[in-house]
């Protein structure tokens, strides 16, 4: 289908004082689904809007299949965008919403009817053409919004937090459906979300953004297991990030110590709850035990107040107030915003 190339794109607001996107480069391969993931204000939506033509980059270039579209308005780009608020036109019924773009392309009425019916079938809403948009549920509205973009057969599909306004159950169902449709059509897709579970479930690659810059880009499993910075480690999944000091090859934070064969200095030790074992001892006190049925989460407080989270297979074995030792099975260490050590099991 198409390749999207974003090269050294920068976007500033307020006469240059705010850099929403800062020297960002990324290539999205043919048929690939890439998620832009980051906290609010990280620049992911601004970047998506620049690809869609709703913002003009201050610097850099955007190419689709080699064609420079950096300055092109939205109506001249081969992109289709699905908005967070659905943005359906409430004065039109579903058919008219979908047919609007096709009419602008001056397709014959029979062709418009055929394509609209086909796309409604694809998104699981056959026979909904005559419905008004306010007669649809949130999930159905989002499907119509997706269909409105897909019916024009864009080269690049842009999704701007499309499931943010839906409840958890519907969100999970729709993201599977969208992923299925994307894979069936093999359409190159850029997807903005601040939900890590959404990104991990849908993306071929995830771009973690922070302050307008790319923090790391990798496949979901790589991003989860080998985060390159403490920010990514903390942003993807749950991570215990303990600041401490390495001296003579040992990381120390209060009574918690761990062999880390790196040079002396400050460091951050990162360990996932599922990689943190517990044993009766005296490093910390159990603050709370939460039983999720399939597993338990144990909060352990060090004497200085720092709290570790450990995932245990059987919550009933542990009680609040109990004194325990922490036994990381896999961990990473960071210094100066980069990995300095990864234990065997963590890599």
């Amino acid at each position, binding site marked *: 289908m198409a390749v999207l190339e974003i090269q050294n794109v920068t976007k500033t607001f307020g006469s240059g004082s705010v850099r929403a996107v800062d020297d960002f480069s990324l290539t999205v391969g043919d048929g690939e689904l890439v998620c832009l993931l980051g906290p609010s204000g990280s620049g992911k939506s601004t970047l998506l809007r620049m690809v*869609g*033509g*709703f913002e003009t980059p201050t610097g850099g270039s955007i190419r689709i299949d080699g064609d420079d579209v950096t300055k092109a*308005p*939205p*109506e001249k780009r081969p*992109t*289709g*965008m699905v*908005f*967070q*608020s659905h*943005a*359906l*036109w*409430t*004065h039109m019924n579903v058919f008219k919403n979908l047919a*609007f*773009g096709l009419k*602008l*392309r001056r397709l014959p009425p029979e062709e418009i009817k055929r394509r609209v019916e086909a796309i409604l079938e694809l998104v699981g809403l056959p026979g909904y053409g005559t419905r008004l948009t306010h007669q649809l549920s949130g999930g159905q509205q989002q499907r119509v*919004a997706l269909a*409105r*973009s897909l019916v*024009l057969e864009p080269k690049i599909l842009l999704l701007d937090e499309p499931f943010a306004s839906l409840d958890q159950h519907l969100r999970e169902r729709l993201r599977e459906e969208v992923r299925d449709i994307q894979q069936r059509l093999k359409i190159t897709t850029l997807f903005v979300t601040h939900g890590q579970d959404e990104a991990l479930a849908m993306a071929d690659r995830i771009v973690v953004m922070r302050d307008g810059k790319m923090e790391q880009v990798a496949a979901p499993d790589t991003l989860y297991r080998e985060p390159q910075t403490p920010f990514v480690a903390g942003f993807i999944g749950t991570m215990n990030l303990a600041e401490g000091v390495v001296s003579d090859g040992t990381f120390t934070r209060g009574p918690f110590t761990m062999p880390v064969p790196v040079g002396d200095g400050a460091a951050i030790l990162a360990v996932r709850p599922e990689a943190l074992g517990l044993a009766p001892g005296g490093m910390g006190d159990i603050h709370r035990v939460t039983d999720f049925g399939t597993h338990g989460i144990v909060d352990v407080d060090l004497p200085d107040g720092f709290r570790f989270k450990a995932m245990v297979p059987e919550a009933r074995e542990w009680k609040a107030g109990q004194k325990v030792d922490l036994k990381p099975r896999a961990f990473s260490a960071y210094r100066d915003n980069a990995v300095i050590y990864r234990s065997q099991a963590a890599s």
Partner: protein
Amino acid sequence: MTDTPAGNIAQATSPAGDIVGTRNRWYLGLLLVAAPVLLVCWLIIYPIIAAVVQTVWVPDADGVNRLSLESYRFFFSDGYSLANLWITLWTTLVCAILLLLICLPIALYLRFSEGRLPAYVQALAIFPMFVPSIILSYAFIRVLGPNGMLDILLNAAHLPKIRSPYLTPWGPVIGLVWDHIPLTVLILLSGLGNVSNQSIEAARDVGAGRLIVLWHIILPRIGNSVLVAASFAVLGIFSAFTIPYVLGPAAPEMMGPFMQRTFRELYDPTSAITQAVISFGFCIVFGLFYVYSVARNQRT
């Protein structure tokens, strides 16, 4: 177990309590709306009925009151009265069209622009609301009247004089349009507030240019606001007095000055009231149109 009887009693008494509560709330609601409703009846409904009765229940030559449509027959057969009605309708229509043509671009600019300039433009657009009509009229005379500022400037530039709109039908049109800009802009702006940026971006995304977005996305969404703005403009302009009185021609004249002159100078209250009832008849059509628009808006 001990909770059960009390619970049952509570259940048994609650429907009756609900009925009493609902009735009390109903009376309270009526009491709250009573004052404005009575005022409307006293100050608006009663004078309307009294005016209509006064024009159709008139004394004959013997001084006996009887039903007669003579005053209406006179109005609709009198060339001068019809000319006045026609100039009023013409002024109203031209002003309403001009107001929409002028205010819609201003409202669109204010809605979709950001920064400091739109704030200044909005202040400028709202400014006429704080200028009394009489001041506006004299400012008009000083600027566009004979030997006004425009004439002086044209003379300084060795250009010919313009034909002043002062004391022509265009005088009230210019004044009334200027006077009604703030309200029209505010109503349209409020309607445009319902058009989300994303619905416009979605239209542009599927290939719509700016004019297509305006025609197919924005205008259908603000249709009710346009109707409300037009209704307000028509109601205000049809019954305008000061601006048509000061800036308009002596003949034909708009219904406002015509009524005043008939009453004060011709000492003919029946004809003046007849003119008022006829004016009201035209205004009520637009009033009902406005009420219908608002009701439809609330339903959707």
